[in-house]
């Protein structure tokens, strides 16, 4: 990458307020992270759609949909976890600002998913006829995928169970007190795209709710 035009070490101008460490720790987390944050998605975009797109940047370990706290349905953002750093970098470089489900999505490094960060505060927006026939995936009910597992993980036979690319240590801290969305503000490149979408009615008519992001930004700046 041409270092003349872009400082490759400067990953994000914004700081997620939920990160408890120092600025240096935050930057180190971004540098090493294999997680990307995806924003400005349609509420109707499914994990499988995201999988199809993001697997073109590398093998995906996990997808965590951002959910409306009340309705337990997707609310326009998600986290994608890769196995390798290079793949996460490629997702940020090559997918950010392109279309998924007719919306220009933003992709940014994330310092790492933690339990609780999946809750956003979605708002339902306008629906196009065709879109209206689609169903929102309901993540609620007795069987909640993101709830912590019930069984003792230790009872899996380690020797055999060291699965292909699935047994990475994965630290989860729990921050349940903070319900604000983890949505972060766009970097300059995203801003351009966001502006594009505001100027260009083509993007709008397809979308569900563009105010969503503005709303997040406002709260973030508060």
């Amino acid at each position: 990458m041409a270092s003349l035009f872009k400082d490759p070490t400067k990953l994000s101008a914004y700081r997620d307020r939920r990160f408890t460490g120092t600025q240096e720790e935050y930057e180190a987390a971004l540098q090493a992270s294999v997680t990307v944050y995806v924003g400005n998605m349609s509420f109707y975009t499914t994990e499988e759609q995201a999988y199809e797109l993001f697997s073109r940047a590398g093998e995906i370990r996990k997808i965590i949909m951002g959910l409306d706290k009340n309705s337990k349905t997707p609310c326009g953002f998600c986290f994608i976890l890769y196995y390798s750093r290079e793949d996460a970098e490629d997702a940020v470089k090559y997918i950010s600002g392109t279309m998924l489900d007719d919306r220009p999505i933003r992709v940014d490094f994330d310092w790492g998913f933690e339990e609780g960060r999946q809750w956003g505060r979605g708002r339902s927006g306008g629906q196009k006829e065709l879109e209206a026939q689609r169903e929102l995936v309901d993540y609620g009910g007795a069987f909640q995928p993101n709830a912590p597992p019930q069984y003792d993980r230790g009872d899996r036979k380690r020797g055999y169970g060291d699965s292909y690319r699935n047994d990475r240590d994965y630290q989860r801290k729990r921050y349940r007190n903070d319900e604000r969305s983890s949505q972060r503000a766009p970097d300059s490149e995203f801003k351009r795209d966001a502006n594009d979408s505001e100027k260009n009615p083509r993007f709008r008519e397809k979308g569900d709710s563009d105010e969503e992001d503005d709303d997040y930004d406002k709260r973030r700046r508060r």
Partner: protein
Amino acid sequence: MSAGWRTLLLRIGDRCPEYGGSADHKEHIETCYGVLCREYEHSKDAMFEFLLQCADQLPHKIPFFGVLIGLINLENEDFSKGIVDTTHANLQDALHNENRDRIRILLRFLCGLMCSKVVLPNSIIETFEALLSSAATILDEETGNPSWQPRADFYVYCILASLPWGGSELFEQVPDEFERVLVGIQSYISIRRHFDDIAFSVFETDEGNSPNKKDFIEDLWERIQVLSRNGWKVKSVPKPHLSFEAQLVAGVSHRFSPISCPPPTISQSSSEIVKGQEKHEADLKYPQRLRRLHIFPTNKAENMQPVDRFVVEECILDVLLFFNGCRKECAFYLVSLPVPFRYEYLMAETIFSQLLLLPNPPFRPIYYTLVIIDLCKALPGAFPSVVVGAVHALFDRISNMDMECRTRLILWFSHHLSNFQFIWPWQEWAYVKDLPKWAPQRVFVQEVLEREIRLSYFDKIKQSIEDAVELEELLPPKAGPNFRYHSDEGKESTDGHRLSKELVAMVRGRKTQGDIISWVDEKIIPVNGAKFALDVVSQTLLDIGSKSFTHLITVLERYGQIISKLCPNEEMQLLLMDEVSAYWKNSTQMIAIAIDRMMGYRLLSNLAIVKWVFSPANVDQFHVSDRPWEILRNAVSKTYNRIFDLRKEIQTLRKGLQAAKEASEKAARELEEAKSIIEIVDGQPVPSENPGKLRRLQARADKAKEGEVTTEESLEAKEALLARGLEESKELLRLLFKSFVEVLTERLPPISADGDVPNLRAGDPNVNSSARDPEATTMEIDNENGGDNDSQLNGQNKKISHNVGELEQWCLCTLGYLKSFSRQYATEIWSHIAMLDQEIFVGNIHPLIRKAAFSGLCRPTSEGSHL
């Protein structure tokens, strides 16, 4: 205050606000030099570094930087001498580190410096001669190692590639010496081996040899010879130094010290296998940068001199290389190269040939998707129609396209359309629905639609083809699960329905895996048998996990052990995959994901997956769908990803262990030192350090030791995993090739009595016509003139019917994938080649199988014929 000197350097030659929108190169250089002079005293060190960086990363502007350095040279000889010396050191490093891009660009930079009288022309000649002599040594059987010809070729390529930037000056100033170099190149080309790149060509011919008559060195040499005949005039390279000649001529030129090339890598052995491995290693290290793909008929493409085409391609590739990750600048520089002619068609051909480059493009294919999207936005009037033309031309030749390239094209095209509202003139391809279901054109359209639906959704894509309703037949079924034990009040409840309901209730009731396993053991297996148990359990769990990818992996994480218990062997694992494919029969994507995840949780082994893919039901799909191949690709790449990750982790752990050892030794030493300080108190030796400090040091030493041991243990564990992984990968390759050979041997038409190998494409009128007239192909690689006379034929080729029979097409397709896997995993295969030679590639194997596998490995099939 005007723009700073850095910005002016970066933007030089661009039509931009920093230079008041002017496009006059002379003006740019004067403005920039003026600012550099003004700031020189304050910032000369920074300028020094920055100029070198600019030359490195903006190589298409080297002529400008050359002139600026030349002008500085008039006032400050030391500055430019420093530039020359640093460039020498950089080139020397690059040669020894085998940094290809650096070597190539530094030679161009040297030419730029020579044009501006900073470097002596004779030094350039010496540099060229050092490279040439190293190249010749490599080819020598005695002193070198001909397996490393790729390196020798690369050196010669670098010399030739720099000539558009300096040939004219060398010809003027040192004509005799320059002529000597050219003669040297000519004699190098006469002794080197022609490179037949059949393994890497995007299109196959039925004769099985590459359609290119000239390889990349021969091609470039010819372009340079034409240039030499034209008096070294190159339109595509700016010559800003000419406007400053009167000043520059007063400068003192510096000598560029002689360079040394790394010694040739001497062959370890004369065995065919070792030579093949060495050649493979050399090919990997010095890959060909571009394999030119002629997509457009010559009457459409821009008309330019052969060398100009080369220069523009080099510039495009450099922009793609250096602006990867900077979307805005990448698109800007791609559309505004400093050349006085249009080049959209050439740009499209260059980008498509990167996207389809075999074995691998320098970047992930998705990068080129992004570049094409950005170019469509940057040149809305010109580029989209060029892309449309390229797609049509490639589509017309799809039946001869390499399988790997076909897959890349499908992925690219579906993704591209998803960024442009899925708008495409589908009616032009509506005719494919009348082709047999194995016709490559039809399969291509069907797979593009499948991928579009994955990126979007069924109804949307159905709507996008409403102008070509015939194509609805090619849409996959609307995705949705197919649950065998769906509870339907009206229906009679079978055992399966009842048990499935019970299982759902247990899951809802948060019963543990252990409880459910006992329930299966007690309630299902004794009555209905293990297979039935697997059926009910897998169907029900898949249904519980059917809502999304996350639901699926949650189910597998929580209840995977139940499945694992039921599938202890390959036979049961094959049944499990049958269950998955029955449940998700309407969603190819979910079958692939479920199998991939089950492999991830080791519920399925990679060997079982290969066996399943090569089971009769799937083998029948080989030529009509990508479904089995996607699953196979996933399984093989997951296996090697895992090995790659382990290697990386081991490397990190080794470094960590080293650090831990040092820390531990240091702590131990400190403890010993502290202990050794003894005092005599009351006639007794007593440690003089206070006990608190000793305790602390002891604790620290213990902890460091513990850290060392832990790291050592995890290193050992990972190494054991890697050893197992490598063993597994060997088994995987054995089974993969065995399976290919089995299914192909069953179906390939036999060799005729007089030993003729069957021609699988015999029924294809396309191939027949091109066999009659070798020039009549729309697309030829590395053959500039090949496209001249076929623009008419291009029209005729449209809407051809497909005449290759089903069996022949199945064979072509499967052989194509065999070649593609061999090429993709060539490094791994070469490391197990002795085993494969002994067990798989044995004497009586069908020649077409051997040819497919070997050409993927770039291995000669018989004595004398190098592939």
